[in-house]
């Protein structure tokens, strides 16, 4: 069993963040007054109905666009390193780059020599078990393998914070369970701070230290549920823990109304 690494010092603090999109008629409020914080090395899950602004929130944290209101504190980028790495929902790789090129993609924009780029990328690909596929193109891989490439790409830049946006959403449940195992293993080796967005109650419970439940749009934090299951989180032991059933029932209670409300619109 792998020893759990000490947590890195990279907290996240979000205060009163709101986001307004221009819409056909007037504007659309995607996020409203979202506040929370994530401790260094904490694995924090966010769960909420479709369209409640989870992706919006992560993109703000990754600096893709600014929040309309509120402030975000997150470790700033450093040269030669991507302190905050984002792992995307759905399309996660550039289909025209090989697995290696995809993995190097972050490093390519930093002051890293081609030789070192390659070494670091190959190392991460080995960690996710894809070193045999260095020269393959994404279409030659399964969806699950592609997500592993995107995880390798994030890890290659040696980030302190991992922002993960439903990385396993397009997988079938069985492959999802396998990838969860792998993610937990990788995380326990490095202990980055992780903010993990998901639709799945089971996934949130299985992976995280704490689950933030969001309301339907405009998204706010509705509830916060700590998950005190022991680590490492082996499937069998988690499922047979009586705490598991109680947690999932509790989360579903908090979510059900929001999902029904989101469905209406």
């Amino acid at each position: 069993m792998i020893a759990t690494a000490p947590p890195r010092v990279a907290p996240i603090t979000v205060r009163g963040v709101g986001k307004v999109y221009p819409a056909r008629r007037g504007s659309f409020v995607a996020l409203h007054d979202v506040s929370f914080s994530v401790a260094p090395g904490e694995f924090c899950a966010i769960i909420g109905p479709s369209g409640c602004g989870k992706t919006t929130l992560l993109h703000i944290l990754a600096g893709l666009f600014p929040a309309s209101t509120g402030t975000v504190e997150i470790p700033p980028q450093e040269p030669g390193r991507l302190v905050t790495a984002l792992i995307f929902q759905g399309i996660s790789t550039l289909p025209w780059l090989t697995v290696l090129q995809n993995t190097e993609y972050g490093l390519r924009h930093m002051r890293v020599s081609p030789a070192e780029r390659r070494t670091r990328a190959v190392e991460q690909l080995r960690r996710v078990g894809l070193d045999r596929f260095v020269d393959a193109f994404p279409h030659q891989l399964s969806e699950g393998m592609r997500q592993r490439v995107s995880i390798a790409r994030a890890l290659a830049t040696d980030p302190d914070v991992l922002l993960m946006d439903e990385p396993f959403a397009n997988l079938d449940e069985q492959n999802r369970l396998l990838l969860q195992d792998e993610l937990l293993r990788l995380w326990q080796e490095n202990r980055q701070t992780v903010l993990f967005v998901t639709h799945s109650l089971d996934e949130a419970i299985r992976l995280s230290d704490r689950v933030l439940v969001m309301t339907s749009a405009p998204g706010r934090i509705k509830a916060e549920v700590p998950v005190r299951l022991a680590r490492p989180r082996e499937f069998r032991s988690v499922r047979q823990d009586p705490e598991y059933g109680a947690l999932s029932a509790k989360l579903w209670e908090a979510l059900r109304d929001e999902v029904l409300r989101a469905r209406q619109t």
Partner: protein
Amino acid sequence: MNGPSYRWLAVISPLGLLLVWEILSRTGVADPRFFPPPSTIIRTLADMVRSGELPFHIGVSLRRILIGFVLGSVPAVLLGLAMGLARPLRALLMPIVAAIYPIPKIAIYPLIIFYLGIGEASKVTIVALSIFFLVLLNTMAGVLGLDRAYFNIARAYGAGARSIFTTVAMPGAMPQIFTGLKLAMGFALIVIVGAELLGSDAGIGFLIWRSYQIFAIEAMYVGLLVTAMLGWLATIALDWLERLAMPWRPTN
């Protein structure tokens, strides 16, 4: 699942057609003055190849198409990518492009020979023009149609404007660029044949038109045959280029 029986059909149907034509023409059921038997056409073709006449005309047309194609498509791709990425540029140029695009370019040919005369320049220009807007619009649409996700990946992993141009816009628009190029090839062929019909001293279009004018029917059919072959060659060449330019695409 390609049943052998179907493949068989695919081989005999064109041969059958030629055979029927030959018989109808030889027996006079079809007027051989207008429908000469295929065997006669082939003989004429062989003669024209031997005399060097046909290779000459093919060479002339090919050269015009190639030069015009390159001159038209390279700037079109670059400008199309830029317009796809930069909204102000798009807003500035789109109305003009949209106004010129729907004009069948052959209609501009008289204007072009007005300015450029009847030499090679005007032929190359009409090909380039007839391609330019089509490739431009396809390229731009290719960039605009790209999933935002690709741009987000690039930006989240530190890509600047230049890297986005080369690692997202260009490869991402490539399939649409090739769609554009293939369509453009169709248009280029029509336009060059049309231009050669209208006024020229060489080229496949000229060959067809002159044969028509001097009532040399077999040579006219040879011209048509060669035109079709040019079309095939162009398609094959572009397909090959497409595979070369996009090694990342599944082959099937």
